């Protein structure tokens, strides 16, 4: 803990940790020091001079070390002759500041007048007008009148696209460099820079494609003026007209808290619609950042392609029916096929949906085949035992901590976690990246552990072996409550440790957090990888406390919840191996994503789907039920760190669509089940009674909020930016077995077999900007979604006579997909990386041998 020092602000004494930034310290103590360029999440630069204060120190007698006293017995303060910038000061013993004196007031006034000399009077049309720090601070501290000749202002370009997502208005920029520093320092993407000097100083993008970062939207939040605005929102409404609805991003396991800014809209017949998505502060999850996919990927919620009514296939035609008919028909089919029905839940169904679906599976028969899509990752038992401790925050980890990221292209799969881990690396946390190919995180890693595809489990097991040989095993934990130790220890004897130095970085750390992805692993291997990680963490007692444990980089926003509700990828795999005649597929598109699933579903006798869009799977369906997107309904998602978080209804329903949980409950009713609940809150109450890990997840608990630092929203826009204050709830994490004292933990030897590589292996990889069933309709992002491609090793490509950029064919069993070849020296020999959900045709979700060839003319 840092030393506590006494500082005096405006005559009052306060105790604060030494070395706190003065602006932050004052803020926490309730004194506002206005700033433009300083941001509590970034290092200060002292560029704008808005934060001027009178600064002094208590004069101390050199001999006695006692403060000098004046004739009144007050300590003598030695003031700096000039005003100082508070943002560049750190607190120290005897610091004295004054923030309200005439000198300070005049100083601020001058700075504002100076900034305004080059700032246009665009407030009436500016998207920032109404939530603009410059506007607010001018009102609070600025001059009432300008001495400047209005027509004498400098005119610069007003409509400069920085990439297709962000517009720059050069005149409005006050050169605080927050945007540049955000990209450079926090994200590490060198995409923005200053150009020219003096009054002509301006922001330019120096990357190609322009503004090439996945976090560009955040710059618009922290820009203290309207210089950076998004194309998505451009003139969509004035900020004060918007209703903020707390919601959760439906795309990835981070579970970023969002605020949907909604407003009535003429074009949609006077319905309330989402005008923009803003970050909502949750320091436990996404802090105040979100990625561009979450920010701009909301358009599917009111796309014109949405399915509006229930439909039943009659012959070759789909006939629109009412809900009652649809329920009866589905129930009739479920009765007919009974146990020969396979259920598959999508990756972003809410917990309430999943619970009702689970109840439905029970009414159908004894088998209860509850599958999960995509069927690529498993290991819920490992999470249940050794998941990251409650209260884990990567932001809190310091040089004593270590993070292992294995088998994941982290930025593509979980952008905000990537951002947090990258910043952790900057702070000195030992970040170790293990993957079969280079990823963007490598640059920041303290060490990397490259391996050949298929060997991830062996790498993880090697770490456990290293822990054993270096006697890092935590005796007290192991002896008191761990089962299966002997077998595990035996199995670790003589195991090779692939990267001993990197392993030691991890083993010597006080805190160890593991993020495990599924890249290049078969489903069975992934289960083993998770167990191997759990073994290591339990052996070394990195469980049951914050900043320690295992996090899976699941392939979806609520895969964790689906597993908690009893759905599993193994079941899906089993169903695909031995296909039942009837499939019930909820908000997933297996036929559009995987060739094997496409085959099986095409041959099914009966397929029922709930879906927003006419996906490949929906096109094969006999009964199509229109579900709702995250925006039209409420519910909860469980993120990858097991935090259950609520989202709320933001906009009106499209067509006759209904939330999935209601659809399932109504079908269940037809099958003799209960009367459907009237709200998700009641469904959740039932879950809290039946699922012990969710006992604390009642809606009132999930909706609890507390004050978080830094202050955002409200009057503090100038400080943290326009992220919104959290009003929807911080969510609750469920406890792992390691955190329940009475539970025992189990370890077991793992199977480290690699897959037999025979010829070229196709490895499906995840990319953030894909053509997944929802994201594809977000037009603003179109240019960011790459054309379908496959990445090849140069030797392999040369052998096949394939050049970089060439259009080639990938043969997947019976089908071929045409994609562009990328030969860029990043792919290991013998493997071809094929992004999932990028082609319109189905590809692969699990690694398989395959053929890549030139297209015959």
């Amino acid at each position, binding site marked *: 803990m840092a030393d506590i020092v006494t500082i005096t602000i405006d005559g009052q004494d306060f105790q604060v940790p030494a070395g706190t930034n003065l602006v932050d310290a004052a803020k926490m103590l309730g004194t506002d020091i206005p700033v433009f360029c300083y941001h509590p999440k970034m290092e200060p630069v002292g560029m704008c001079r808005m934060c001027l204060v009178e600064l002094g120190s208590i004069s101390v007698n050199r001999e006695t070390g006692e403060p000098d006293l004046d004739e009144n017995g007050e300590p003598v303060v030695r003031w700096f002759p000039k005003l100082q910038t508070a943002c560049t000061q750190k607190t120290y013993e005897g610091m004295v500041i004054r923030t309200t004196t005439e000198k300070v007031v005049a100083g601020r006034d001058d700075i504002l007048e100076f900034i305004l000399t080059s700032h*246009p*009077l*665009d407030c*009436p*049309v*500016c998207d920032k*007008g109404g939530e603009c720090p410059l506007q607010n601070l001018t009102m609070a501290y600025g001059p009432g009148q300008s001495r400047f000749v209005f*027509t004498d202002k400098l*005119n610069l370009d*007003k*409509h400069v696209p920085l990439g297709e997502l962000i517009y720059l*208005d050069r005149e409005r920029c006050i050169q605080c460099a927050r945007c540049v520093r955000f990209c450079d320092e926090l994200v590490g993407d060198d995409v923005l820079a200053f150009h020219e000097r003096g009054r002509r100083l301006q922001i330019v993008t120096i990357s190609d494609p322009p503004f090439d970062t996945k976090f560009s939207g955040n710059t618009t939040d922290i820009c203290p003026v309207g210089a950076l605005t998004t194309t998505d929102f*451009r*003139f*969509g*409404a*004035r900020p*004060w*007209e918007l209703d903020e609805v707390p919601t959760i991003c439906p795309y990835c396991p981070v579970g970023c808290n969002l605020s949907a800014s909604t407003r009535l*809209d*003429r*074009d949609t017949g006077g319905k309330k619609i989402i005008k923009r998505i803003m970050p909502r502060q949750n320091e436990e999850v996404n802090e105040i950042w979100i990625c561009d996919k979450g920010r701009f990927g909301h358009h599917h919620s009111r796309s014109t392609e949405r399915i509006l009514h229930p439909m039943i296939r009659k012959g070759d035609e789909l006939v629109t029916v009412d809900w009652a008919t649809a329920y009866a028909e589905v129930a009739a089919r479920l009765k007919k096929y009974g146990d020969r029905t396979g259920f598959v839940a999508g990756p972003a169904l809410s917990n309430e949906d999943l619970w009702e679906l689970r109840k439905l599976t029970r009414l159908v028969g004894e088998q209860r085949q509850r599958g999960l899509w995509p069927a690529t990752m498993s290991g819920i038992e490992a999470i249940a035992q050794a998941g990251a401790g409650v209260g884990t925050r990567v932001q809190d980890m310091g040089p004593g901590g270590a993070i292992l990221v294995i088998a994941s292209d982290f930025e593509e799969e979980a952008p905000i976690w990537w951002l947090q881990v990258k910043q952790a690396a900057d702070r000195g946390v030992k970040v170790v990246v293990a993957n079969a190919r280079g990823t963007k995180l490598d640059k920041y890693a303290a060490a990397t552990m490259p391996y050949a595809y298929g060997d991830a489990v062996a790498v993880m097991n090697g770490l456990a072996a290293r822990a054993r040989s270096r006697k890092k095993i935590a005796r007290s934990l192991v002896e008191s409550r761990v089962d299966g130790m002997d077998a595990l220890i035996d199995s670790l004897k003589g195991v090779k440790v692939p990267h001993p130095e990197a392993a030691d970085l991890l083993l010597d750390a006080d805190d160890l957090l593991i993020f495990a992805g599924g890249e290049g692993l078969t489903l069975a291997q992934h289960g083993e990888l998770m167990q191997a990680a759990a073994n290591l963490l339990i052996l070394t007692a990195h469980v049951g406390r914050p900043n320690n444990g295992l996090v899976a980089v699941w392939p979806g926003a609520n895969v964790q919840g689906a597993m908690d509700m009893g759905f599993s990828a193994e079941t899906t795999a089993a169903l695909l191996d031995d296909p039942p005649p009837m499939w019930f597929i909820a908000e997933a598109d297996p036929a559009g994503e995987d060739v094997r699933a496409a085959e099986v579903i095409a041959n099914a006798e009966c397929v029922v789907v709930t879906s927003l869009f006419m996906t490949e799977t929906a096109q094969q369906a006999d009964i199509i039920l229109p579900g709702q997107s995250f925006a039209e309904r409420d519910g909860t998602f469980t993120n990858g760190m097991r935090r259950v978080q609520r989202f709320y209804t933001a906009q009106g329903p499209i067509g006759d669509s209904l939330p999935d949980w209601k659809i399932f409950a109504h079908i269940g009713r037809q099958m003799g089940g209960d009367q459907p609940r009237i709200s998700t809150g009641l469904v959740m109450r039932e879950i809290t009674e039946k699922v012990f890990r969710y006992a604390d997840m009642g809606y009132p608990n999930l909706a609890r909020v507390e004050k978080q630092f830094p202050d955002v929203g409200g009057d503090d826009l100038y400080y943290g930016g326009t992220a919104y204050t959290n009003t929807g709830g911080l969510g609750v994490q469920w406890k792992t077995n390691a955190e329940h004292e009475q539970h025992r933990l189990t370890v077991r030897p793992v199977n480290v077999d690699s897959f037999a590589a025979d010829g070229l292996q196709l490895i499906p990889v995840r990319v953030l900007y894909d053509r997944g069933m929802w994201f594809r309709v977000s037009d603003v992002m179109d240019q960011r979604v790459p054309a379908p491609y496959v990445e090849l090793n140069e030797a392999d490509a040369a052998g096949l006579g394939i050049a970089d950029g060439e259009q080639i064919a990938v043969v997947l069993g019976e089908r071929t997909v045409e994609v562009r070849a990328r030969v860029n020296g990043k792919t290991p020999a013998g493997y071809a990386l094929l992004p999932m959900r990028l082609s319109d045709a189905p590809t692969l979700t699990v690694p398989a041998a395959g053929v890549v060839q030139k297209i015959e003319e």
Partner: protein
Amino acid sequence: MNMVRGFATTLKHVIEGPVTIEYPEQERPVRERFKGRHALKRYENGLEKCIGCSLCAAACPADAIWVEAAENTDEERYSPGERYAKTYEINMLRCIFCGYCEDACPTEAIVLEHEYRLSFNDRYDAIYTKDMLIDPVPPGVQGTPQVTEPGKFTRSIPDMENPK
């Protein structure tokens, strides 16, 4: 004497004639500063003054105004700045003719004019849309949208003067 004075007053009013007029056959001119139905103004070149900033809607105590904005391009230009009102509606049943919108407008685009004959048979008819509110195009110039040459309208907002 008092009685005589009383009769004289009566007589004066008898010969003065009626002060009421036969409305609607006859109409009386309103005062210069009378506040009647709004009009959306144009510049002499035919472009609309309204920039779709919604400040009138924000100022309106009766919540009678609805504005939705969109962006001008040189190919399709409605107003001189970057932004124009795509939708502009005033619900005359809500309006209390206070004139706050007029005060709030930075471009003097919305003005309460002298028209006061407002009556409707249907509540929906009370919603005046942009087409009904906007002034006719001055003679000899193009209406909106106009095609304008690039580089001419480069400001976010047209230059404004303080109201006199």
